[in-house]
């Protein structure tokens, strides 16, 4: 035990051996160390930045690092309007992310096209038309509290995963 007083450890019931399921331990590890892909598409990205900034501070929930590379990211927040020109980029970033990967659709645009659903020649009506989405957060834009709520919901979803059947997107 690295530097921890052995007498102290003996006082904690059960230690130094803790029994748990591998499933719980892995899921807890995953859900409390989600790295997000730094990826904003439009005005919703402002609220996403506010959520990451000290006032709301998503690091409290384990989203410590906004990863600048999709290969190190676990979660993609689609924060904004998905346009036809952006579609191949989003698919490519998503496919570069390592499994298991999660997607949050933030805001009306990413859910359904939002304000641009009618008479638009360039907007894709929802991120779920092109990539699988786990959590939808309504609002235009959603407040940082709503994004944090969505993140907590995603953590709960990760905790319910079965070890053998963690979804893999092909």
């Amino acid at each position, binding site marked *: 035990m690295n530097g921890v007083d052995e007498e102290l450890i003996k006082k904690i019931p059960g230690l130094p051996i803790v029994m748990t399921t591998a499933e719980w331990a892995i899921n807890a590890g995953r859900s409390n160390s989600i790295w997000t892909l730094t990826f904003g598409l439009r005005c919703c990205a402002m609220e996403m930045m506010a959520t990451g900034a000290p006032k709301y501070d998503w690091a409290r929930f384990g989203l410590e690092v906004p990863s600048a590379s999709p290969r190190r990211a676990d979660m993609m927040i689609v924060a904004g309007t998905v346009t*036809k*020109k952006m579609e191949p980029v989003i698919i490519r970033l998503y496919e570069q992310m390592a499994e298991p990967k999660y997607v949050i659709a933030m805001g009306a645009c990413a859910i359904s096209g939002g304000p641009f*659903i*009618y*008479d*638009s*020649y*360039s907007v894709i*009506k929802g991120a779920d038309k092109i990539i699988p989405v786990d959590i939808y957060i309504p609002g235009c834009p959603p407040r940082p509290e709503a994004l944090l709520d969505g993140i907590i919901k995603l953590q709960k979803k990760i905790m319910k995963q079965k070890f053998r059947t963690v979804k893999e997107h092909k």
Partner: protein
Amino acid sequence: MIFTEILDKLKAKHEVLESKEDLGVLNAWVSAKKIKEVIGFLKNDMQFGQLSFVTAVDLMAANNIEMVYRLFSYETKSDVVIKVKLDRAKPEIETITSIFSTADWHERETSEMFGVKFLNHPDPNRLLLPDGIDMPLRKDFKCADMTPLPKV
């Protein structure tokens, strides 16, 4: 400069097909062949040093595409709008990038949005739109996944 003054000076040198005042700004229609001379004249002889924008309007009923050039003068603090009517079936006009190089991107955007062909343009490629969307700002534009606004 008030708009009558600009109009008189312009008329003295170039043919003006039509003109009207709109919110205190002179709108003058000129012919497509003369566009380079008119813009050059406004820049060099009448101190209109800034090209605010270049765009177009689709006048479907009249079967026209109308080019719009808006210029501003820092010296006299006045605006002028030059318009050119083009044939909707085959809209073609000479580029003005040799006079105002800022017109480059404006013309590329107008070209992809309205299908106007700019002759002698230095870089006649798409600016913003991905391949597969053509002339979306024309009134009769259709595309398969476009949901029309419901009438209420």
